């Protein structure tokens, strides 16, 4: 007899945007952290601590400031969003209401400006965009990154249709690894592996 699952009664499992970003860094990161429960100990990384400090400061300083240059008409800071349908939750540094009627996520990065956008940063903005779009029922066509270590350089990141597909797939993959407990293939480059906190465990 075929068993049928009733998805409407299944409690919604959700992951955080950070978990999805960790998966994009390397799927084994998800395995070590979520399946084996080995903590990352990110609090020991100086840059992480500095980044947290910057986030805390940015939220407090000048909360009414609107970026007129990109036609912001309203903003909300440190917005917690969750969606059972997307199986995703997370905090957006700033949600911007733009003059053209669209919304956009803005993310502060304790990093220096590079002439390209990292895939993890793009996907982070995409996931935030999906949450914003659902929560506020408005279109989200682009996101913004602020590079704190490059004099708060503001960069616009227009979304491509494929970006949302990649972002949704990352969420599903994280859930699949957590639920199946399968040891995934590594994806990191040599430079990433050298800097990974699980390098001594990873085979």
């Amino acid at each position, binding site marked *: 007899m075929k068993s049928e699952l009733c998805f409407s009664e299944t409690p919604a499992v959700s992951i955080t945007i950070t978990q999805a970003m960790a998966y994009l860094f390397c799927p084994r990161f998800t395995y070590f952290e979520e399946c084996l429960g080995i903590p990352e100990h990110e609090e020991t*990384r100086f840059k992480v601590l500095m980044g947290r400090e910057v986030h805390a400061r940015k939220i407090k300083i000048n909360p009414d400031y609107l970026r007129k240059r990109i036609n912001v008409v309203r903003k909300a800071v440190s917005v917690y969003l969750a969606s059972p349908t997307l199986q995703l939750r997370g905090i957006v540094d700033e949600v911007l209401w733009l003059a053209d009627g669209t919304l956009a996520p803005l993310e502060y990065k304790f990093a220096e400006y590079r002439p390209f956008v990292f895939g993890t940063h793009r996907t982070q903005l995409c996931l935030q965009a999906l949450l914003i779009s659902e929560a506020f029922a408005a279109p989200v066509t682009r996101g913004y990154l602020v590079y704190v270590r490059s004099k708060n350089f503001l960069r616009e990141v227009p979304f491509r249709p494929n970006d949302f597909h990649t972002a949704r797939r990352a969420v599903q993959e994280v859930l699949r690894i957590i639920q199946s407990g399968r040891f995934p293939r590594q994806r990191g480059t040599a430079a990433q592996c050298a800097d990974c906190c699980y390098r001594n465990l990873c085979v």
Partner: protein
Amino acid sequence: MLVWVVYDIEKNPVRSKVAKACLNAGIYRVQKSVFLGELNATQVDELALRIKHLIDEQRDSVYIFPMCREDFGHVRLLGQAFDKELVTDEVRALFL
């Protein structure tokens, strides 16, 4: 990459903290205010940020020099030499 960290720091507590940060980053003390060792780009960036956070930028000075292995081969040592193999992480075990 191989990195030299050379500093001139006025206050003793700050100097100690910078020395400790260098040792914690995994580089070796070759002279009182000179450290040398193998670090990757992220580690160099993190060490630079940490030192910048500690020092008084108006009074102290810290140089972080990256160096390629080819140039390191041309380093000339006069007097007491440091262990070249140790600072390049070629010594994997100190005890057998």
